[in-house]
C-alpha cells in the first residue's frame, strides 16, 4: 500500500513529504508510547500510527528508521516537527479519525501489523 492510498482511506492529509507519496508501506505499529516504538525491530518499511505529536515523536522515528508517521485524533504537526521530518526524508499524515478506527480501516485493507 502506498502512502497516498493510506491517506485516502482514512481521510488523511499528507502535511509533509508529499514527494514520497507513492512510497510503499509494508506494515504498521500503533502507539503513543515512544519507548515502545523504540523496541520495534523490523527491516520492513513501517508506518507509525500515533496520537502523540511533538518533536520527540519525530526523533524517535529517526532513531527507529521509521519514515512514515500517521497522526490520529486530529493532532496537528508543528513547523518544528515538519522541519525535522524534512531533514530525515519522512512523510507526515494527519487524520481526524480515532486511533482505533484508523487501525481498523487499515487492517481491513490488508496493512499488516509488525508483530
Amino acid at each position, binding site marked *: 500500500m502506498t502512502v497516498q492510498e493510506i491517506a485516502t482511506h482514512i481521510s488523511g492529509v499528507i502535511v509533509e513529504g508529499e514527494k514520497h507519496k507513492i512510497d510503499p508501506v509494508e506494515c504498521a505499529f500503533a502507539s503513543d*508510547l515512544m*519507548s515502545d516504538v*523504540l523496541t520495534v525491530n523490523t527491516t520492513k518499511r513501517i508506518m507509525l500510527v500515533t496520537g502523540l505529536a511533538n518533536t520527540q515523536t519525530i*526523533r524517535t522515528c529517526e532513531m527507529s*528508521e521509521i519514515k512514515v508517521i500517521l497522526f490520529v485524533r486530529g493532532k496537528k504537526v508543528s513547523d518544528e516537527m515538519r522541519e525535522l521530518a524534512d531533514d530525515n526524508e519522512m512523510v507526515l499524515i494527519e487524520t481526524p479519525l480515532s486511533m482505533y478506527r484508523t487501525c481498523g480501516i487499515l487492517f481491513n485493507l490488508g496493512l499488516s501489523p509488525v508483530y
Partner: protein
Amino acid sequence: MMNFKFLVEGGDFTNAGTASSDVKKMMKQLGVESSIIKRTVVALYEAEVNIVAHAFKGEIEVTIDEDKIYVKLADEGPGIPDISQAMQKGFSTASPKVREMGFGAGMGLPNMKANADILQVNSVVNQGTVVEITNFFNVNNG
C-alpha cells in the same frame, strides 16, 4: 579514532535527541552496517532522553574506533538508588511531563541493554549517573 563531545541540558526536550541524531549521521558517513547503527542510536537516544528527563545536565562522549563505538554519558543529577530495580521493565520515576513526551514507561534501561553489546551503569545518589555503551561493528548480533 574519532572523538566527539556533546552537552545535554536537563529538561530541554526541544533539543533532546540532537546528539543521537549527529552520531547516527556520523556512523552512516563511516559506512557502518545499518542494523548496528540502529541498535546504537536507539540505546544512545534512550540514554540521552534519560539525562533530559532526570538530570540537571550531562555530557556525552563518543569514541569511534575501527571495530567499535563507545559512548559515555555522564550526568549530574539525582542518581539511581537501586540500579537492578531500574533495569526492570516497567519501573520508572519519571515526572508527568516526561510521560507526556511519550517516555517514562520504565522501558529505557531494559531497551538500552537490549541494544548494546556492553552496557555499564554506575550511579551515586545525589551526584549523578554514568552510562557506558559499547557496540562492535564486526560481530554477529543474531
